[in-house]
Structures are given as structure tokens and as C-alpha cells.
């Protein structure tokens, strides 16, 4: 029997080995093992359980066991995982063995009477177990156990092997996926060994560096180095060798075609399975475009800041310039500010002035250099050419006048003197008034070439504009000052004239009247003594002396009144209530009015801008005339006023004797009368005086209408209340 069993055992083992060698998956291994176990032992059921990663032993394969049973005994293992030198455990009769008492019911239901536990182990200790199940009480023999152990060992090995295969397949798959990622990346992914020799080169690297993989394999990575950076790669390698990673390192590299590009690198050490560093993996991103954009942005930002600074400067300059009303100071300030802002070494400002004789002169202000340095300065040609040379140009800018053929030929390219002054950079701008007149030009120089940028040109253009406005204002102010001075002078002359008039009036009243008085008195004394005795014509002659003297006196008085009327009232005309003035005039004329039995009426009279005494003079003259030249009717005089366009037109209407229209102008003449002295008193000066008075206020007096026997209407216009 032993021989047969032996043969059977060997055959089983052989079968098992054959099956195991063909196993593709773990399941195949387990199935082969189970088949072997059942074949080689008396067990009618068997199972394989293994410890999972969570330390729980679970069924991996079984024959003839229900799910319930499996569920009930999962996790049960007589040995903890990893136990070394574990021995099989036999339970000949489950009913009698207390070690399985817990499971007796479960076993009973399953129909199991006997068990055998066979440990599965390799170097690492117990990793699982075989289970042999018997339906009858049975003590597993040593042979059975040996077979099971052998099968177990093979299974363990096969499992390990299969696991390795699977792992390797998984690693291969992972490795293939990685390779795909590397290949498809836009970044350059390059690996090199510790000597810097390139060992891998993806499509991204081909695109970025221009070399194909074939061209670079086996070449040192230094072929990519950019000039001036040859030390970088060894440095990076030494860092890698120390196990350090280099992250986001921005540098430059050289392409196959020689172009230098900006790159960002990340270099990491590559380790083998043992953890040794065997090389480096480099990811390089082409950031040339990015860097260019950054530079562009930085430049735009700088430009924007500069522009803002320029605007601020100009804004500050404006008020400073505007505060200068003295043209000379203003011009100097402009030149100084502009020279500083332009960053020039020296600057000048030529400007056109017209002197009192109306001649045009070119003056200049200098900045940055003493006047002596500008000795022998060539003056610009007369203003015509000066203006035309700036025609159409806002700013003239030259980086190096020694290279510019236009320099020295004509304005404005000749703004600064040659000679000891080294001028290479040159900047000029016209200062043009709002009316378009070229007031002058600003000129700046620097000994180094290309010193004046667009920004400077913009600043200077701005200053030139501000300067033009400031100069215009200064000129206006000067003109205003001039007008004011003139006005003052005129006023003073007026005062002088008035004073002269006063003196004349006074002396006239004295020196003219005195002899007249003496004539009159003397004649009266004579008349007293001899009047009775004078005959015929002699009496008339004496009478003539008296009357003529008297007439002369009156004429002189009237002339004085006329002269006083030409005197300008000083100060602006106040607002006077014409109604009140009329009342005063009527009061002073009361005697005349009562004597003539006249009726004087008036409408609403407004407030006017004329000195009170003058208005009184006008009204008094016209009203007394109206009464004096009365007809046989009861004299009626009406005064009215009418406002029109800032003027107030007064009318004095009477029902007197009237005036023939052809004399309408004549009556305003000095000493002009239409009647004899004996008809109506008066010297004919009243209306002349009135005319002088209204003229002083820019007004007018006229005979509005009249007809002999139909009365007259006199009108005069004076300014209304302002």
C-alpha cells in the first residue's frame, strides 16, 4: 500500500508542478493546489486561505464549502501572520476537540467531522494556511501532512513568482505610461547620468533645443550651455549628487541653430531600486516669450510712470510760471525749469520783444552756464526767419549734432554756440502764443550724445506750451499795467486841468470883473453928478458906458459859468434820483415860476448815473428857458423820462414861443441868441453849457421838436443807473 500511495503522491506532485508552471494567474495556482491536496490526501474538501494586507486571513480558493461556512470562519487562524516554524494542527474529531469548540455548530452544519491545519510559509513566516476537511473522524497522517506541506511550499513559491510577474507587468505598464507622458510633454524632459551624458530626450526637447534624440544620445548635456553659463551644469550636477533638487531655475540655453533662449529648469535626482543616485532628470521650459512679454510690460510700466511724472512736473510748472507776471523773471524761470527738466547741461530761451520805438529785438535768458560762456552768441535772424524755421515743427531733437548735416546751417539748428561748448545732444522747441505768433524758442544742449529722449521732448513741448500761456498772460498784465498807468496819468492831467480852470475862474472873476466894476461905478458917479446936465447924444453915450459895462459883467459871469461847466467832475458818476434833483431845482426857481405863474409838472423820474450838480444845471437851464421864452398863454412845462438801452432820455416840453427848425442847431452855440437883448434877457450861454455837460457823460442834447407859436420839446440823454 505504501508504494501505491507513494506513487500516487509523486504523480500528484508532478501534476501540480506541471499545472503550476502553466499558471498565468494566482487563481490557477490555487486551483492546482486544491486539486493536488484532494488528490493526495483523504480529505474530501479543502481550502486555501491567505493573510491579506489588512492582516485578516481570508479564503482564496475552496472546494465543497458553502458561503456561510466560509463567512463564519474567515479570519480564524491558529497562527498569527508571520509565525516562524509553524507546525500543522490535526483535529481528528471536531466533536471531541475543545480547540474548535467555538465552531462546533458551524462545522456540524457543514458536515465536517475532522480537520487539518497546514501552515503556508516562506522565509517571512506564516502567510496563510491549507485546510483539509473530512466528513468522518479522521486523523490526518504524517504522509498527508507532508504532501500538504510540499504543496504549500510550491504554492508559496508559485504565488510569489506569479506576484512578481504581475508586479513586473504592472511596473511595465506604469513605465510605459510614464514614457508616454514624457513623450507628449511640451516641456523638454531630459535625463542624464552622473557624468552629464544625455540618456533620454523627449519630443519636447527636440522642439525646444532643435536636436533629435539620435543626435544627442551619448553627448554631454553641456552642448546646450549658453555662452557665459558653462559652469552652471557642473554646479547643478553636484547639487543633484548631493540629493538636492533644483527647482524653477531661470537661465539661458543654446539651441542647435545657435539661438539663445530663456529657460526655466527643474532638475531632480534619479535613484535606482537601491536608492542610489544614478543620474538626473531635467525638465526645461522655454520661457523666452514669457520673458519678452515681461520685459515689454516692465518697459510699458516705466513709460507710463515716466509719463505720469512728466504730467505731474508740468502741472507743478504751470502755476509757478503763472505766478510770474514780470516778463524778465518769467523768462528766466522758464529757462531754468526747462533746462533742469530736460536733463540738459545748458539751456537758452530766445524771445522777441518790441521796444517803445516799435522795433523788434531778440532777448535771451540762459541757464546752466555763465553769461561769458555765451559771448559771441550768434543771434537768431530777425523774427521772420526765426518764426519760419519753426514752422510746422513742434520739437527738434538731435542725438548728435556732429553727425547731423543740418546743424549749423540754419535755425533752429543753430540755437547754441559752437566753440568751447561741446554740444552733441540737442533739443529745441518753439514757444508759440495762442494767437499763433512765435514768441521765441527754447534750446538745450548736452555734451553727451543721445541724451534727450522722447520723454524729454514731450516735457519740453509741454513747458513750451505753458511758457507761451504764461508769457501771453504776462504781456496782457503788462498791457493792463500800462493802461492803468496811462489812466492814472490821464486822471492826473485831468486834475491839473481842473485846477487850472479853477485858477483861471478865480482870476477871471477877479481880474476881469475888477475893471468892469470900476467902469460901472465910475459911470454911475458921473451920472449922479452930471446926468441931469448931459444933453442928447452925450446922455446916450454915458448910458452906453453903463449898459455895456453891465453887459460885459454878465458876459464874464456867463463865461465863467461855461468854463466851470467844462470842468470834469472827478470820480465816477454816482446814482442820483432825478426826481429829488428836480424838486431842488424847482425850489431854487420858485421865484421865477411864481412870477411867471407857470405850472411845472413831471412824470416818474428814474435814478441816473450823473453828478447831482450837473443834472441840476441841465434841468435848471431848460426849465428856466421854457419859462423865459413863454407865449401869452399860461406857461406850462412838463418833464418826463424814458429809459432805453442803458440811457435815460429826459424831455422838457413847453408851450412857449417855439423855435424855427432851421435854428435847431444854432441855439446850442456859444453866446448864440435868436432874440435881441431887450426882448429876452440872457447871454445865450445856457444851452451851450448844457451841451458841454451832457457831452461829459457821453450823452446828447437836442431840440426834439418845435414850431413857432407851438412850444418846444428839448431832450437830453444821460446814462441810466448802471
Amino acid at each position, binding site marked *: 500500500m505504501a508504494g501505491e500511495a507513494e506513487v500516487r503522491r509523486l504523480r500528484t506532485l508532478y501534476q501540480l508542478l506541471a499545472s503550476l508552471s502553466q499558471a498565468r494567474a494566482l487563481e490557477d495556482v490555487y486551483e492546482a493546489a486544491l486539486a493536488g491536496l484532494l488528490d493526495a490526501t483523504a480529505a474530501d474538501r479543502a481550502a486555501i486561505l491567505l493573510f491579506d494586507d489588512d492582516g485578516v486571513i481570508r479564503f482564496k480558493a475552496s472546494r465543497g464549502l458553502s458561503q456561510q461556512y466560509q463567512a463564519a470562519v474567515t479570519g480564524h487562524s491558529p497562527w498569527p501572520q508571520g509565525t516562524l516554524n509553524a507546525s500543522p494542527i490535526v483535529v481528528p474529531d471536531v466533536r471531541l476537540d475543545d480547540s474548535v469548540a467555538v465552531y462546533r455548530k458551524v462545522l456540524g452544519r457543514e458536515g465536517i467531522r475532522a480537520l487539518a491545519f497546514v501552515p503556508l510559509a516562506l522565509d517571512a513566516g506564516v502567510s496563510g494556511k491549507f485546510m483539509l476537511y473530512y466528513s468522518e473522524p479522521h486523523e490526518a497522517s504524517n504522509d498527508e501532512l507532508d504532501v500538504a506541506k510540499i504543496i504549500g511550499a510550491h504554492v508559496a513559491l508559485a504565488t510569489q513568482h506569479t506576484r512578481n510577474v504581475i508586479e513586473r507587468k504592472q511596473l511595465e505598464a506604469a513605465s510605459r505610461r510614464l514614457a508616454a507622458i514624457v513623450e507628449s510633454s511640451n516641456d523638454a524632459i531630459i535625463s542624464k547620468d552622473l557624468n552629464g551624458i544625455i540618456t533620454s530626450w523627449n519630443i519636447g526637447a527636440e522642439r525646444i533645443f532643435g536636436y533629435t534624440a539620435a543626435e544627442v544620445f551619448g553627448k554631454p548635456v553641456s552642448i546646450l550651455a549658453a555662452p557665459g553659463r558653462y559652469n552652471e551644469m557642473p554646479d547643478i550636477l553636484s547639487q543633484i549628487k548631493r540629493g538636492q533638487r533644483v527647482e524653477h531655475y531661470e537661465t539661458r540655453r543654446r539651441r542647435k541653430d545657435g539661438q539663445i533662449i530663456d529657460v526655466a529648469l527643474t532638475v531632480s535626482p534619479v535613484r535606482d531600486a537601491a536608492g542610489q543616485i544614478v543620474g538626473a532628470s531635467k525638465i526645461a521650459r522655454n520661457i523666452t516669450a514669457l520673458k519678452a512679454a515681461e520685459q515689454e510690460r516692465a518697459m510699458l510700466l516705466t513709460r507710463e510712470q515716466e509719463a505720469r511724472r512728466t504730467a505731474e512736473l508740468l502741472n507743478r510748472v504751470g502755476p509757478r510760471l503763472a505766478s510770474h507776471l514780470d516778463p524778465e523773471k518769467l523768462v528766466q524761470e522758464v529757462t531754468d525749469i526747462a533746462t533742469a527738466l530736460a536733463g540738459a547741461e545748458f539751456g537758452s530761451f530766445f524771445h522777441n520783444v518790441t521796444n517803445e520805438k516799435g522795433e523788434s529785438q531778440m532777448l535771451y535768458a540762459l541757464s546752466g552756464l555763465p553769461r561769458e560762456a555765451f559771448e559771441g552768441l550768434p543771434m537768431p535772424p530777425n523774427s521772420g526767419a526765426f518764426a519760419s524755421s519753426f514752422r510746422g515743427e513742434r520739437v527738434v531733437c538731435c542725438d548728435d549734432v556732429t553727425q547731423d548735416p543740418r546743424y549749423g546751417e540754419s535755425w533752429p539748428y543753430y540755437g547754441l554756440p559752437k566753440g568751447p561748448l561741446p554740444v552733441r545732444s540737442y533739443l529745441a522747441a518753439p514757444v508759440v502764443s495762442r494767437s499763433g505768433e512765435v514768441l521765441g524758442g527754447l534750446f538745450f544742449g548736452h555734451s553727451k550724445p543721445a541724451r534727450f529722449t522722447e520723454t524729454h521732448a514731450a516735457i519740453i513741448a509741454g513747458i513750451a506750451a505753458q511758457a507761451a500761456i504764461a508769457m501771453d498772460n504776462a504781456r496782457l498784465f503788462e498791457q493792463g499795467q500800462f493802461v492803468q498807468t496811462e489812466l492814472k496819468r490821464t486822471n492826473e492831467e485831468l486834475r491839473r486841468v481842473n485846477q487850472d480852470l479853477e485858477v483861471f475862474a478865480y482870476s477871471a*472873476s*477877479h481880474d476881469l470883473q475888477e475893471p468892469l*466894476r470900476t467902469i*460901472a*461905478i465910475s459911470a454911475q*458917479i458921473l451920472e449922479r453928478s452930471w446926468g441931469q446936465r448931459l444933453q442928447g447924444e452925450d446922455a446916450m453915450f454915458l448910458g452906453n458906458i453903463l449898459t455895456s*459895462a453891465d453887459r460885459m459883467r454878465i458876459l464874464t459871469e456867463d463865461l465863467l459859468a461855461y468854463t466851470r461847466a467844462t470842468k470834469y467832475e472827478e470820480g465816477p458818476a454816482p446814482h442820483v434820483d432825478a426826481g429829488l434833483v428836480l424838486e431842488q431845482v424847482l425850489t431854487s426857481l420858485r421865484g421865477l415860476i411864481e412870477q411867471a405863474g407857470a405850472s411845472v409838472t413831471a412824470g416818474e423820474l428814474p435814478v441816473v448815473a450823473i453828478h447831482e450838480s450837473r443834472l441840476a444845471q441841465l434841468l435848471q437851464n431848460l426849465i428856466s428857458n421854457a419859462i423865459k421864452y413863454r407865449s401869452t398863454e399860461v406857461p406850462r412845462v412838463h418833464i418826463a423820462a424814458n429809459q432805453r438801452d442803458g440811457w435815460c432820455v429826459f424831455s422838457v416840453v413847453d408851450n412857449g414861443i417855439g423855435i424855427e427848425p432851421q435854428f435847431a442847431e444854432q441855439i446850442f452855440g456859444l453866446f448864440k441868441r435868436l432874440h435881441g437883448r431887450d426882448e429876452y434877457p440872457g447871454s445865450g450861454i445856457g444851452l451851450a453849457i448844457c451841451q458841454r455837460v451832457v457831452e461829459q457823460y457821453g450823452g446828447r442834447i437836442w431840440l426834439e421838436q418845435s414850431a413857432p407859436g407851438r412850444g418846444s420839446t428839448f431832450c437830453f440823454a444821460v446814462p441810466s443807473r448802471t
Partner: protein
Amino acid sequence: MLLVEDNPTDEFVVKEVLDGCGLNLDPHVVRNGQDALRYLQALEQDGKAACPALVLLDLNLPKVSGLEILKALRKSLRCSRTPVIVVTSSSAETDRYAAKQLGAEGYFQKPTDLASYMELAELIKRVLEIQEES
């Protein structure tokens, strides 16, 4: 009394006025300002001479104006209280005011007719009465 007047016609009339007053005043006539001042100075120095009872003073005099003479009179020691009537052809307010400031007791504007000239007599009488009272 003193009459300071350069116009002979006026001198003639003023004397007539004085006669008409019944005041029996025989005026000493001085024709120009300088003479007037000399006369006043002489008065000043001559302790025995009496101050004039009245001075009729024209303003518009050659060499020295009437106002100057009035000023000098008022500054003098002896005769500073002498009553003065300014008799002038000037109608200027400034003259009237100045005369008043300088203490003239009266101001008479010479008229152009004889009749009005007689009113000077009234003024003279009035001034002399006031003078006597004080």
C-alpha cells in the same frame, strides 16, 4: 482908521460911505500891502500912537495880499484886537472863510452899483457898536 485899498474909484466910494455914516472917521489910505505892513509895524513900535478904530481891508492888493496883512495884524501885540472889515470884489468862498478864520469882524463884497455900496455903512456901524460893547 485905516483903509487899505489900491483902486482909487473904490477909495472914493468908501470915503463917501464913511461920510454918509456920520461917523467922522478920516481914514489913512494905504495903496499896497507892503505899505500896509510898514504902517502896522510903525504902530507897533510907537507906544504913543493909538490903534485904529477900524481897518477896511481889500484882499487883492499888490505885493502883499490882504490876508497876509490881517494875519500880521492879529499877530501884533498892540493892535491885534483892532476890528477889521474885509472889503473885496472877491466872491470866493475860500476868501470869506479865510477872513473869518483870521478873525475879520465883517466881510463886504464890493457891488457893481452905487446903491448897494451904501450897505457897507450899515456893516461898519454894526461892527463898531459890537466893538464898543466888548
